[in-house]
């Protein structure tokens, strides 16, 4: 019998190793798998390369992972946002690496990684400092730069409901990067608000088909990053 449901969060993330590349879902707090991130802090893996649109806020979730010095490099499009001080402080001291990627290029590189496409050309960033050092080509009257795929050892994502095959549905704009990250990671680990029976998810509505998912853990009432930040919480 196929059953991707894992009994405990520590078990689900136990094999994330030092030096791993980890995609973390979420656009700001929306879609951020905060319980999985906190478990990763407890687990202790370090020298991670983390791929996320942002760098977290306050001292919880992704910001806490960075603050606890587990992240060697961030690949993201927008590393500063409201209540975001941890990454900017470390970056200005030269203690963490940043690869800045336009948001759509970031998404497309992840999709390419999931689709087995090692490189592609895009008009985004042509003529800007973010195109420096990249191969340029001219197609049908326009300049394009070459971008490489992004793949990861692990993806940590959040969804609304999952079944034991790993089929996933999301909630509103919390979907953001999760479906493409699930395709681009060797091992995709999902926290779901609800674990449902096979057949309960409408096949027409499934946003991530189960073959992209490896492990599922039910977290019925996930914490909200903004609430923890407002309360001044630090993790751990």
């Amino acid at each position, binding site marked *: 019998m196929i059953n991707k449901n894992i009994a405990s969060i520590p078990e689900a993330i136990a094999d994330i190793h030092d030096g791993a590349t980890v995609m973390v879902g979420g*656009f700001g707090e929306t879609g951020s798998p905060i319980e999985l991130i906190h478990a990763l802090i407890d687990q202790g893996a370090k020298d991670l390369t983390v791929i996320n649109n942002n760098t977290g806020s306050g001292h919880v979730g992704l910001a806490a992972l960075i603050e606890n010095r587990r992240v060697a490099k961030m690949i993201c*499009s927008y590393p500063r946002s409201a209540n975001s001080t941890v990454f900017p402080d470390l970056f*200005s001291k030269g203690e963490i690496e940043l690869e*800045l990627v336009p948001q759509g290029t970031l998404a497309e590189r992840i999709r390419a990684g999931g689709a087995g496409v090692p490189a592609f050309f895009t008009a*985004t960033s042509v003529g800007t400092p973010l195109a420096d050092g990249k191969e340029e080509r001219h197609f049908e009257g326009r300049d394009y730069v070459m971008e490489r795929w992004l793949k990861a050892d692990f993806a940590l994502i959040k969804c609304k409901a999952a079944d034991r095959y790993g089929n996933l549905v*999301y909630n509103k704009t919390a979907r953001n990067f999760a479906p493409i990250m699930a395709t681009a990671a060797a091992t995709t680990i999902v926290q779901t608000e609800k674990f449902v029976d096979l057949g309960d998810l409408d096949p027409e509505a499934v946003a991530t088909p189960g073959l992209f998912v490896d492990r599922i853990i039910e977290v019925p009432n996930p914490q909200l990053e903004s609430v923890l930040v407002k309360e001044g919480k630090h993790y751990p």
Partner: protein
Amino acid sequence: MSTQDFIGWSRDQMAARVAKDIPNGAYVNLGIGIPELIVQHVPDGTEVIYHTENGLLGMGPSPTPDELDPELINAGKKPVTAIPGAAYFHHADSFTMIRGGHIDICVLGAMQVAENGDLANWSTGGDKAIPAVGGAMDLVAGAKKIYVITQHCTKHGVPKLMKECTFPLTGRKVVKRIYTELAVIDVAEDGLHLIELAPGISFDYVKDRTDCALIDNTA
């Protein structure tokens, strides 16, 4: 020259002027700040669909406390609503809409615009600033029409329209039209064409505050 508290169009009047150029049925992406005001000025009977790049087509107004859902936000990470007929999608699909040329109009703010349509709006290039770009470079490279809405000069009175941008570019030759508190200006092959003046503003007044050639095309 006499000094006034208020010269030309207000922010709301600028937004209303942009709204006049958005046709019925347009798919539109609005940047953060003044561009967000445009929504309030689209006339009744004109149906516009708003795209927000974090994954929603059919963005509605801010939620009431009852409607608020932290998992329903816009690209500025503020809570929004979804109109009847809205659709959610993942980031690669959202940027397919942008990069694939399916968004009709994108309205953005600017730090600098060059006479050839180059736009700088993401970085001042300072060593100490943490660089952050978001979706700006994708929007300017992909949307069918890029409109800029901005104050004509910086807070310090330095012209934002110039021969060549000195800040790092967001995109090369991307801006089609510029709306400021003083005028509406088109970017054409031969440079900037002033097509409309705010009430009480003269062509020479705008020209004096523009750091490149400006062609009077108001006639």
